[in-house]
């Protein structure tokens, strides 16, 4: 953000330098005015010298118009100097000059028309013109029309930016005037677009406005909606009878969903149409101010814990004239009934508001469609992440039936490997390319070690495997905490993955998500290749289906189990690098994904990679869908998703893709 601002600043400075040069360039052609004789601009200015010297927003408009109307070449330079508080008035003769500081207390005076130095003056002989921000705004607006046709492209861009930032009715004419002569096609399109937007809001002819509105009603740009919304802005009002001369949006009924009874009465009170309704707290404070010998309005203080007694006491006080009359509920109802509540458009022309509403509705539909697309893409990227996290599990849990609660910690190890590699290799592209195989190697080794030392002894005791691997999980988590500390470590993606693929103002996909999606696809392909086309895949399938038969065929089940488990763990490591790019690397990184990963595999159907893919897709889109329904609360989204999964398992206990018959076992 600050970078952007800085760039703007540089740009603006540049513009003024250019403006100044343009003014100087004109000096050569303009004839030198005679000394003692006022230049044409100076003449114009002197006509309203007093108002210029003490410029105010309310009076300066016509003067600026007059200055611009003089069509003198030096006008832009003067206006920008004025805007920058570089114009000074000489006290002795009231002439205006552009002054620059010479040294200490003296200033060099430059003639407004020629730009040549006409002398110096001490600071106390000069009065600086200090236009306030309102005046500066008007000056800027006046400047824009010069900038719009400026030969320098950057100046024109700057002018357009200025219009976009402060659109106004008076900019429409100069903007239109500048379009035909615009040489740059891109800028011309942009100018035309802004012209349409300005026409929508400010054109004098309603038909032209409606045309513009209709023409833009298929545009998804944020600027279009920003231009349309003020047209349909409404104001809540209350009156005795519905006024005739307004552009009515709708009438409101007090007590309805749009206008609560209390809010309606507050409107009445604010409009001075009804006395304020005493709140319970006000009632109480009034009562406590009028305690008299243990009684308020004749009611003993001790009884005032009863709300009805309070009302009685207050009524007594009111009857005595000490406090205002109590506004009862009946009073409120009567007041509400005798007034109309309505919303009216600030825009007076009903045809324009109708067209704007129609255009907004059309845009909303299109935005909705695009948002749905965006949501779908979001869901796909989340699904890719879940798939990446779960694919290793699909091997170790799905194929081998080993519950590895430390799977999440393997993901974490992969992510930390990436982090460590980045500390050694500063180039992000190279470091990621190194980190991926290294993460695989590290977690493959960890997986093999774990399989040999622990899991091997616990085959056929799945619950014990769960607990033992859980022990490893907490040990690894704590180790990571001891080594890397508790704060999140960054894993920075290469520069070319920054940014996003922007479709329109609604739809954008960050490159990193595309990369993760591609990575997920690669892994799917890799997995399929390994399982269906390689010796290891064949042996793995053989061992998982019938270890004894496989052993008798000369396959070493121990070795195959070890390698398969290592493979699943290694993939978890690579997933860790990918997830680390997307999320912060902490010791709890894996724990955040483990339940979802297991859910993915269970929901999809154990023992089937397509199941894991479907499971990830389902869980990812489900989570995004719920988040969309309740955007404020991602925690609730996860809660509901888990509840949904629990219910889902009721109907498909074996997951989406279920192995049937005897092969499924019991």
């Amino acid at each position, binding site marked *: 953000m600050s970078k952007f601002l800085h760039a703007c600043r540089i740009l603006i400075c540049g513009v003024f330098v250019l403006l100044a040069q343009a003014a100087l360039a004109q000096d050569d052609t303009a004839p030198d005015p005679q000394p003692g004789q006022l230049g044409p601009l100076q003449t114009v200015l002197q006509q309203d010298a007093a108002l210029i010297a003490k410029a105010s927003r309310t009076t300066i408009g016509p003067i600026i118009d007059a200055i611009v109307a003089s069509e003198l070449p030096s006008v832009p330079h003067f206006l920008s100097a004025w805007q920058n508080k570089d114009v000074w008035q000489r006290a002795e003769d009231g002439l205006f000059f552009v002054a620059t500081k010479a040294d200490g207390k003296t200033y060099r005076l430059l003639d407004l028309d020629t730009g040549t130095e006409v002398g110096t003056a001490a600071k106390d002989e000069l009065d600086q013109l200090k236009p306030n921000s309102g005046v500066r705004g008007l000056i800027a607006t006046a400047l824009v029309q010069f900038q719009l046709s400026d030969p320098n492209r950057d100046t024109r861009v700057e002018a357009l930016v200025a219009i976009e930032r402060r659109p106004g009715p008076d900019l429409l004419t100069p903007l239109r005037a500048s379009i035909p002569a615009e040489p740059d096609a891109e800028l011309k399109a942009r100018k035309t677009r802004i012209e349409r937007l300005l026409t929508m809001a400010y054109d004098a002819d309603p038909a032209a406005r409606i045309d513009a509105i209709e023409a833009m009603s298929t545009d998804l740009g944020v600027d279009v909606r920003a231009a349309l919304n003020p047209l349909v802005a409404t104001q809540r009002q209350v009156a005795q009878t519905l006024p005739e001369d307004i552009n009515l949006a709708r009438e409101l009924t007090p007590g309805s969903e749009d206008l609560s009874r209390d809010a309606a009465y507050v409107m009445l009170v604010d409009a001075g149409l009804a006395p304020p309704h005493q709140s319970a707290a006000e009632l109480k404070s009034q009562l406590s101010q009028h305690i008299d010998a243990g009684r308020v309005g004749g009611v003993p203080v001790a009884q005032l814990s009863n709300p009805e007694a309070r009302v009685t006491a207050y009524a007594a006080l009111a009857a005595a004239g000490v406090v205002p009359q109590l506004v009862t509920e009946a009073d409120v109802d009567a007041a509400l009934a005798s007034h109309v509540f309505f919303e009216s458009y600030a825009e007076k022309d009903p045809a324009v508001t109708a067209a704007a509403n129609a255009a907004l509705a059309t845009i909303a539909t299109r935005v909705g469609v695009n948002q749905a697309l965006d949501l779908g893409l979001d869901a796909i990227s989340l699904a890719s992440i879940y798939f990446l996290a779960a694919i290793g599990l699909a091997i170790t849990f799905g194929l081998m039936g080993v519950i590895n609660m430390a799977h999440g910690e393997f993901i974490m190890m992969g992510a930390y490997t990436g982090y460590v590699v980045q500390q050694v290799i500063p180039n992000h592209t190279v470091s990621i390319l190194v980190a991926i195989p290294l993460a695989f190697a590290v977690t493959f080794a960890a997986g093999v070690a774990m399989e040999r030392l622990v899991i091997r002894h616990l085959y056929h005791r799945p619950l014990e495997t769960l607990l033992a691997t859980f022990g490893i999980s907490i040990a690894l988590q704590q180790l990571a905490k001891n080594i890397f500390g508790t704060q999140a470590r960054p894993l920075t993606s290469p520069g070319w993955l920054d940014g996003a693929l922007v479709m329109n103002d609604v739809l954008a996909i960050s490159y990193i998500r595309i990369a993760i999606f591609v990575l997920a696809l690669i892994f799917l392909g890799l997995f399929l290749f390994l399982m269906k086309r390689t010796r290891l895949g064949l042996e793995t399938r053989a061992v998982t289906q019938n270890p004894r038969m496989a052993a008798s065929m000369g396959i070493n089940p121990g070795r195959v189990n070890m390698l398969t488990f290592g493979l699943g763990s290694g993939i978890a490591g690579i997933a860790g690098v990918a997830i680390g790019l997307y999320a912060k690397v902490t010791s709890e990184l894996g724990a955040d994904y483990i339940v979802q990963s297991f859910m993915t595999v269970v929901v999809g159907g154990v023992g089937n990679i397509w199941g894991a893919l479907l499971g990830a897709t389902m869980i990812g889109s489900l989570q995004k869908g719920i988040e969309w329904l309740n955007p404020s609360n991602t925690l609730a989204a996860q809660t509901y998703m888990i509840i949904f999964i629990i219910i889902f398992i009721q109907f498909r206990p074996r997951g989406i893709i279920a192995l*049937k*018959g*005897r*092969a499924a076992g019991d």
Partner: protein
Amino acid sequence: MSQMNTLLEVSGVSVSFDGFKAINNLSFQIGPAELRAVIGPNGAGKTTFMDIVTGKTRPDEGRVLFGEKSVSLLAMSEAKIAQAGVGRKFQKPTVFEEQSVHENLMMALKAPRVWWSVLTFRPEAPDMARVQELADQVGLRDQLDRIAGELSHGQKQWLEIGMLLAQEPRLLLVDEPAAGMTPEEREHTTDLLVEAAKTRAVVVVEHDMEFVRRLNCKVTVLHEGSVLAEGGLDHVTANPDVIDVYLGR
């Protein structure tokens, strides 16, 4: 009238696993006090047949009716079917190895199966006597306090049969009871089954022809999921189809 003589009626039952027809239009009947041997080569569908009757597997089509009122077993859970009077002995001896013989038998003893009755159940003298009697019957009298896991293979088989008898089922399905037994143990097992069949229906699935001969009962031969032949052992062994299936190919 045929209802009177039929305890279990299986008719037109088929079931397939992933396209493989394990049971194909099978029909089978057994009376209330009858001993029946079911034989057949591997994959003939013997175990699947028992799975269907006990509710473990749901058939794709067909009927399974049980008892005088001919209630359908297909809509019932395994537990309900067992409560209705169908007992099953698995191929491998499945007793609760961590518990004593006494506890095994007591658990199987016919009594209400709902959880609160089970929770408040405390054995009375008649229950103890019944357990004793069952232990006598299966020859485990001296083993009552032993942990079932410590028993020999044959003893476990007997314990399981004892548990089945304790359930007092009206239909007993026994899967290869003699597998892995010594000759003396087989003899004892035969006696148990023949004795049991005097008061209830007993279906014995068996590979071993010698054992089947000793049972001396009607034999049903299964092949490729349906009944190939039925009758006395000598009758079916003379059947050319049966000879073909067992010896041919």
